[in-house]
């Protein structure tokens, strides 16, 4: 049996209340809020966070593959799945692939993972993340949100078996970004739905239903990608599904999250799936993928660390529209009179790949003191070369002292730097993120999160920051 053995989600802490957009332009907006990746987040960091959400029950060493699906890769040339795998501390024998360019990238990665498991690779992690930018004052700006979801596809302890799948390909120009486009372009809605989305999704679902001799009544939840709330309900009902069967599209909570949208809904559906229930999952993008899952007797025995439910509840929605523009790089602020960061050195990054991406320090074999960054001479007993690797990524920590820096270069000043004391020993002076500077206190509980420190010379520099415990 091949199917989903673990799942997780990541929804950025910050949400933009759509009324802030309405206030800016004096025009009506859809209800609710949208999730906004912080300026130090991108699809890679969100994929890592979603993967960490589902890996609580699984050792990274057991992963045979790490597949990243996104339409917003930080690089046009350079594999991002390799960064995700390194951050998760997988062995270097793991198979890594980026699935890109299509809103169907997530389901394509899931299908490829299932194929890999069928042919003998076990435990393939699929992380789907997207943070698409839309031009200011447009419908897409109102609609789009940022999020990520993750799944492990495997053959033991399966929670939801992949019973069958069906793909339809159709090269319809509905929405696109040319290689140098910053913002999503689209043809008019009526064409997109009547000649693209509608018929392709219907054909994929109908083909699958025909193969499996399914009727809507056999399906507990329909997890359906849709370009908007309206088309979700309309399409589902035209296919014969009841309102109660339609998985919430999270348009009012997260927004339309690109390739990650339907996968996020799937992760949400899995949180409440009962043994025997069927979940029909369909995506769209130059065609459609339809996948039929059936929850096994294991359903309910696995729960992600926070999951969709936990992430939805952990939020701050007071950001203003100018901050949103700033984070998305759509508004140039006067830079401080400080030098921009130098590009990082590739050899130095290479020497420290494991320490920086998987967040290893060291622990002294002589006296037991954990320390980060990794040392050769012990900071406590000065034993030389008596160190073992010690990973701090999941270690709870507290703030020993902190500062709010108004002078340093940042996309969102002021920057909070904190001295973080890890439970069991070890201390790091690092940047904080997703925090309200005024609310930071000595003794505050923090957790580590994978972020992009800065970009220089075309190099995205990833490392870890502390955030208040979500």
């Amino acid at each position, binding site marked *: 049996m091949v199917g989903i053995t673990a799942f997780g989600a990541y929804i950025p802490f910050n949400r933009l209340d759509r009324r802030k957009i309405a206030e800016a332009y004096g025009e009506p907006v859809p209800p609710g809020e949208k999730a906004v990746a912080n300026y130090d987040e991108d699809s890679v960091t969100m994929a890592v966070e979603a993967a960490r959400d589902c890996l609580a029950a699984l050792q990274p060493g057991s992963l045979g593959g790490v597949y990243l699906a996104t339409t917003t890769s930080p690089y046009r040339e350079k594999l991002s799945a390799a960064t995700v795998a390194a951050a998760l501390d997988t062995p270097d024998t793991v198979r890594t692939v980026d699935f890109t360019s299509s809103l169907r990238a997530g389901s394509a990665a899931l299908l490829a993972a299932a194929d890999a498991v069928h042919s003998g690779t076990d435990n393939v992690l699929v992380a789907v993340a997207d943070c698409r930018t839309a031009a200011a004052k447009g419908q897409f700006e109102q609609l789009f949100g940022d999020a990520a979801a993750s799944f492990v596809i495997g053959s033991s302890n399966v929670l939801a078996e992949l019973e069958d799948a069906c793909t339809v390909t159709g090269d319809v120009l509905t929405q696109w970004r040319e290689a140098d486009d910053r913002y999503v372009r689209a043809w008019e809605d009526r064409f997109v739905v009547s000649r693209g989305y509608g018929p392709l999704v219907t054909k994929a679902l109908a083909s699958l239903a025909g193969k499996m001799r399914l009727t809507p009544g056999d399906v507990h939840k329909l997890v359906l990608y849709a370009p908007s709330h309206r088309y979700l309900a309309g399409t589902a009902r035209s296919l014969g599904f009841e309102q109660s069967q339609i998985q919430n599209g999270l348009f009012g909570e997260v927004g339309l999250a690109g390739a990650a949208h339907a996968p996020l809904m799937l992760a949400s559906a899995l949180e409440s799936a009962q043994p025997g229930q069927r979940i029909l999952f369909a995506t769209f993008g130059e065609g459609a993928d339809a996948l039929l899952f059936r929850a096994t007797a294991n359903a309910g025995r696995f729960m992600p660390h926070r999951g969709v439910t936990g992430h939805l509840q952990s939020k701050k929605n007071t950001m203003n529209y100018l901050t949103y523009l700033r984070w998305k790089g759509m508004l140039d602020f006067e830079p401080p009179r400080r030098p921009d960061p*130098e590009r990082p050195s590739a050899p130095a990054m290479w020497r420290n790949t494991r320490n920086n991406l998987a967040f290893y320090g060291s622990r002294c074999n002589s006296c037991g003191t954990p320390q980060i960054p990794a040392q050769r001479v012990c900071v406590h007993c000065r034993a030389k070369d008596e160190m073992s690797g010690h990973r701090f990524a999941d270690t709870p920590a507290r703030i020993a002292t902190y*500062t709010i*820096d108004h002078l340093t270069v940042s996309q969102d000043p002021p920057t909070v730097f904190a001295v973080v004391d890890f439970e069991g020993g070890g201390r790091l002076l690092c940047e904080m993120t997703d925090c309200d500077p005024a609310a930071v206190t*000595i003794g505050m509980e923090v957790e580590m999160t994978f972020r992009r420190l800065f970009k220089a010379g075309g190099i995205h520099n990833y490392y870890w920051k502390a955030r208040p415990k979500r």
Partner: protein
Amino acid sequence: MSIRDKVAVIGMGCTSFGEHWDKSANDMLIDAAYDALADAGLAPDDIQAYWLGTCASGWAGISLSEPLKIQYKPVTRVENFCATGTDAFRNACYAVASGAYDIAMAIGVEKLKDSGYSGLVITPPPGDGTAPNYSAPAAFSLLAPAYFSKYGLDPATGKKVLARIAYKNHKNGALNPKAQFRKEVSMEKILQSPIVAAPLGVMDCSGVADGSAAAIIVRAEDAGKYRPDPIYVKALSVVAGPGHGAMHQDYDFTSIRETYHAGVDAYRQAGITDPRREISMAEVHDCFTPTELVIYEDLGFSARGRAWQDVLDGVFDLDGRLPVNPDGGLKSFGHPIGASGLRMLYEMYLQLRGQAGPRQIDNPKLGLTHNLGGFPWEAVCSVCIVGKEPG
């Protein structure tokens, strides 16, 4: 094992400190060097070896030999963060004490105002880019909440203590014609200055200035040949720390260990057992107000947890029991890194010889200078003690 009374300073020069838009580092080196030569009554050819302290305004000995047209003599460039100037002096003293040379010059310079940046910027060597990019005030501001919290100061009282330090230093600087800022600043203005790194405001930070200072060193027994009132070196200490505080949880950010250890070493060399009583005056590294606060405790001027009360009681004022930063400190002078340590020594040279004008302290015997480079948890520190009399 001590440098005590082995060497003496027989001449010094110091430029005014400030925004010298019209002067290069070379210009300031020439001014300070020739001032020192004139003060000692010497000609350029009398100097046998040079130690040049500069953090980032030049590289190698030629940064000094070229502007001064030094004729093929030893010039060593020294860099040790904010301890650069004092370390240049230290090395020159050792060279003379060893007998390798009879007369040496230590000179420091920094040209900060050509960068266009606010504050000091040092470009690190290429790296993996993961070191946190905090500004210097942010790094030192970490001391404040930790100190307040440990000793039960509410934020308002803590802020007032810090402001009182800045107030004192500006008050002293107002009396100094060589200072960058020569005005008293009210407590209110300091307390209300815009926040740079909470809780520090702009007025909790030292200024950004250009400057240069120089000293000429001979063996103590020769000093009388050059002038009747030389000053004598009693102790020279430079320590570099292991970076322990950023990695080990037993450091609590209310002290800077490098300062403590340099102090202990210097007091041993000078035979001082009760610094609060024996030291007549001190020039310490007030890069930011919380730095000066913890220095008082690390150097034994105040008991642990008591420095804030001593500040409020005026212990370190110009007319207090132990005047600190009588010339106005980094607060009034700015901090041209390579020059600061020698600028501090210049004030000791003036005070010990009764030449400090309206800032003159009554009959000082021993003066201490202190520099701190790096960060509270990972620093180099220099302490120098000089005296009016040998023995």
